[in-house]
């Protein structure tokens, strides 16, 4: 239809058709993803990227919908990326998050895209990273990224955001064992959704005690959770107190306040120069992934496939240890 260049120009000019086609090309080809990011990167940097993760069925999509509606009322545009797992057996995926998002249809200020996790090593992070850059350059003010807090890759995606929400629900989160410790580590805001259901307070309390930091909850200092019992102001102006917030996506309770919290977190990041710090962290992560990918691909292109295979077999048969194997492989590619 159009060459890549033209799609980029059209997408930056507001064509949804071209924007959507570019996202497909990012998903299908790391090379095209690279070309696209190269051309749009300097136009981005305005969007507030918000990750939303949590266990299946906790109400992420419903909440994303309510958040998007509330953000639209503040005259900002919203892009949503909803990631669902690819079936490891068939390679297919059923992407059903839009079912909960029908209230957003017909609004030109909202763009929704479903993505399958596909499951290449680091590939999902790379693809969503590039899609976020593109949506940012295309001018969306807020980018909401929904992932299921199940696989590490999915959690990493949400954690790459400026602000990360972890969503729990009563009956799922009140058993401390069931809350993944790793998930709490990444939360800037803990949300207990389905607050219209019984058992909310138990979940809230469980989360607070998980944070192990007394009744005021935990604080995050330059991205790290710190233990303290003094108040926020006494302790350090750079610290962010991780709120535990109740919402109901069904009744709308707590939604406006959640948008306020998200906005406050963005302001906090900017006021304390942590925004730039997060951008740096994100840059570093992306650079590492790209470097890894680049060297792995270059390495493989210089090496006969059978040779790598032989080495792997030798390692498996314990004729060769992995470290000596690396020496051999490097010697092979360096000549």
């Amino acid at each position: 239809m159009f060459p890549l260049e033209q799609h980029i120009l059209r997408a930056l000019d507001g064509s949804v058709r071209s924007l959507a086609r570019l996202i497909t090309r990012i998903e299908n080809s790391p090379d095209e993803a690279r070309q696209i990011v190269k051309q749009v990167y300097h136009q981005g940097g305005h969007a507030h990227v918000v990750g939303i993760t949590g266990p299946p069925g906790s109400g992420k999509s419903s909440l994303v919908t309510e958040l998007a509606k509330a953000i639209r009322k503040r005259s900002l545009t919203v892009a949503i990326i909803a990631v669902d797992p690819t079936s490891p057996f068939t390679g297919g995926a059923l992407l059903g998050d839009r079912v909960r998002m029908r209230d957003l249809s017909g609004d030109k200020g909202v763009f929704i895209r479903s993505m399958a996790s596909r499951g290449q090593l680091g590939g999902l992070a790379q693809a969503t990273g590039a899609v976020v850059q593109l949506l940012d350059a295309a001018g969306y003010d807020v980018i909401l990224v929904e992932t299921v807090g199940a696989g590490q890759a999915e959690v990493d995606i949400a954690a790459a955001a400026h602000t990360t929400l972890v969503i729990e629900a009563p009956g799922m989160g009140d058993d401390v064992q069931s809350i993944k410790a790793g998930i709490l580590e990444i939360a800037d805001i803990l949300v207990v959704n389905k607050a219209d259901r019984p058992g909310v307070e138990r979940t809230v309390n469980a989360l607070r005690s998980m944070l192990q930091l007394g009744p005021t909850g935990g604080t995050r200092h330059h991205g790290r959770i710190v233990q303290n019992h003094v108040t926020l102001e006494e302790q350090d102006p750079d610290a962010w107190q991780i709120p535990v917030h109740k919402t109901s996506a069904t009744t709308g309770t707590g939604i406006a306040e959640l948008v306020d919290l998200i906005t406050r977190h963005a302001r906090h990041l900017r006021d304390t120069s942590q925004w730039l710090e997060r951008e740096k962290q994100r840059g570093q992560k992306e650079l590492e992934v790209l470097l890894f990918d680049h060297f792995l691909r270059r390495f493989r292109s210089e090496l006969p496939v059978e040779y790598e295979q032989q080495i792997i077999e030798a390692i498996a048969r314990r004729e060769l240890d992995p470290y000596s194997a690396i020496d051999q492989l490097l010697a092979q590619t360096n000549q």
Partner: protein
Amino acid sequence: MNEYKPRILIAKPGLDGHDRGAKVIARALRDAGMEVIYTGLRQTPEMIVEAALQEDVDAIGLSILSGAHTVLVPRIMTLMRENEMADVPVFLGGIIPPEDAAAMQEAGIAGIFGPGASIDEISRFIWDQIRLPNA
């Protein structure tokens, strides 16, 4: 698993109240290795075309039981053209009376699958459609 992943929108337009058939198709196409976007019940033509546009799908499957296809299909096809998606194949599933088939084809429908159609048949149809030259 490295091969091309077709993206298919399975949509349920019209006002009839259950989507069992649509869900069966959606799951079966997933099991055939496709990425299926499912949008739920009671989709208006505007919602369907908007989802197809944002999701950049390779094909759209409409599940229609209500008999409203004579109204819904032409509207959807018009919106597809208006949104630069005239080249995206649309197929029908559900209950389409044989005497309407010609009119549906004339409206631009690429395939019709009745209740007896097998998933293999539908899946083969989709692969054939998207292999058409289409940049």
